[in-house]
């Protein structure tokens, strides 16, 4: 009884930090102690491990989403040329700065 209650509390504690653990964003770092506690929990809790996998898979699915609109290479080239005009730094034919 006591151990299942402890497990439930740890699940809730981990769920609240799972996004920060997986994203590892510099704006919201976890402490080394928090990271160790989450990893220990994920190693023994199938439900939280599945949740972590799904979040991870969702991020990769969205990052590789073929329906995302991609910018035009011609636009990029024009914008790089515009930056060169602004800063007075024309490039050579292969992108290197001219002396």
């Amino acid at each position, binding site marked *: 009884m006591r151990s299942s209650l402890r497990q439930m509390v740890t699940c809730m504690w981990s769920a609240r930090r799972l996004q920060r653990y997986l994203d590892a964003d510099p704006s919201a770092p976890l402490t080394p102690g928090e990271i160790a506690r989450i990893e220990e929990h994920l190693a023994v809790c199938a439900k939280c491990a599945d949740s972590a996998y799904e979040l991870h898979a969702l991020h990769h699915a969205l990052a590789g*989403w073929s329906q995302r609109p*991609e910018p035009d290479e011609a*636009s990029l080239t024009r914008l790089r040329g515009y930056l060169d005009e602004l800063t007075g730094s024309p490039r050579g034919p292969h992108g290197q700065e001219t002396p």
Partner: protein
Amino acid sequence: MPPPTRPALEDPARAFREHVEPQIEVMLRVALSLTGRRADAEDLVQESLLRAYRAIDRFDGRHPRAWLLTILRHTHVNMHRRRRPDTLADWDRVGDARPAFGAARQQSAEDTVVDGTLDEQLAAAVATLDPRFRAVLVLVDVDDLSYAEAAATLGIPVGTVMSRLSRARRRVREALGSDALSPGRQS
């Protein structure tokens, strides 16, 4: 003999170019998400570059991407005053949503979950999100911005980015169903 190259810090134009040039692609990608139109995205980035160059004296050299995305947001708000500042355009306005280039990304084993069926399911799930949640999800998960960069782009606190992201991901997972992202899924 060519003149000696001055250190970047003594040459503001050169320093500007060194900081900004690596960020142009992400600026254009985010501008495309903001405007939903390729021509508008290019115009927005060009205007933002001009404004950034004029404001170079106020740039401290740290976090150039977040600085540029903040300028991009201000410029976008000025150019499109009627749009809510913390949302993105609908992608279907872009028309040709197929990758113009850059489609050949590094694939890992886990990317194999992104098959055609999941792509369609993702599109449907993301389309039903509240625009504020969709904006954060697209900027962080699709455009690969950090929390702070997404916050700068949308003009909201980092904590709001995190809470909206959590809700957006939960809703997309719920919409996809438990099997779509499960470990046993095969492409």
